[in-house]
């Protein structure tokens, strides 16, 4: 029985690999699926391919993981890390610039 079901799975996989677009095209679809809604046809083909292709499943999962990691990195890493920092000179320069343009701005808003 087990042998028979394995045989059926194998036949399904071979059919998908043979008659549907190859991985090279499916990874483009995987990327697209993260940025837009796939058409019905694209969705069906993609789902069938994923049923038969472990590497493409991983590819999709890892692409999602990267997206999530970038989001977290933005919040965590940038807020909590120590480096890089503005140099003391640039800090002072920007402050001076802000003060003078603030003064200028205040002057203009009086008139």
């Amino acid at each position, binding site marked *: 029985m087990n042998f028979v079901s394995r045989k059926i799975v194998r036949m399904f996989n071979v059919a998908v*690999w043979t008659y549907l677009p*190859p*991985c*090279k*095209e499916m*990874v*483009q679809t995987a*990327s*697209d699926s*993260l*940025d*837009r809604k796939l058409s019905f046809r694209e969705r069906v083909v993609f789902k069938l391919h994923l049923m038969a*292709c472990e*590497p*493409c499943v*991983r*590819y999709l999962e*890892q*692409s999602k*993981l*990267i*997206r999530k*990691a*970038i*989001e*977290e*990195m*933005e919040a*965590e*890493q*940038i*807020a909590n*890390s120590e*480096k*890089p*920092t*503005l140099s003391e000179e*640039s*800090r002072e320069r*920007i*402050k001076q*610039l*802000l*003060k*003078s*343009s*603030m*003064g*200028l*701005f*205040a*002057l203009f*808003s009086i008139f």
Partner: protein
Amino acid sequence: MMHSEAVSFPFTKPDMQAEATTVSHETAARTAVDPAAWVDEHGDYLFRYAVVRLRDEAVAEDVVQETLLSAIQSLRSYSGKATERTWLTSILKHKIVDHFRKSVREVPIGEEETDMSDLDVLFHREDQWQNHWANAFAPTDWNMSPEASLERSEFYMVLGMCMSKMPERVAGVFALREMDGLDSTEICELLSLSASNFWVIMHRARMLLRRCIELNWFKKIQ
């Protein structure tokens, strides 16, 4: 500047908005604004953000300066609802997008960025499954445990390194999407990019990034 001495800091909003009747006075009165303090409180944060996005410390510094200057000019529109940092970050994001748009206007994104032929090797097979993943390059199981925080911060490091190794303009488009959260229509309009080129560039970025992470992190810990 002659007049800077005459102005005392912190500068309060009501003075500037004496004539602006639309702003409620209770909220305005509570908000004392000191732009020089922005530099100490948020300067490094904005700078790091800009460095990640622009990958050049000198350019990042200019953009931070520009951000703070234009913040002064738009103080009137700051409602005080968002935190100061969120407000400044949103201005910074605009400045970064502006910067990127200018650089793309100089040399439009074209064939170099959309050429996928360097990735052909990943799908090169000798058997009948040509154009399926080559065995040596098929994505491996990353076996990631997201709870481990040490692992996570190391992952961020590799991710950051890999993002900085991507071709600059590919990384730029990718970041507009993934970091600034613009959608495809906005990005295509901003960079005068065709939709099909946009999909290819995003795909290319993900392929390069994933491959780089796999090589530099997951292979290392095995």
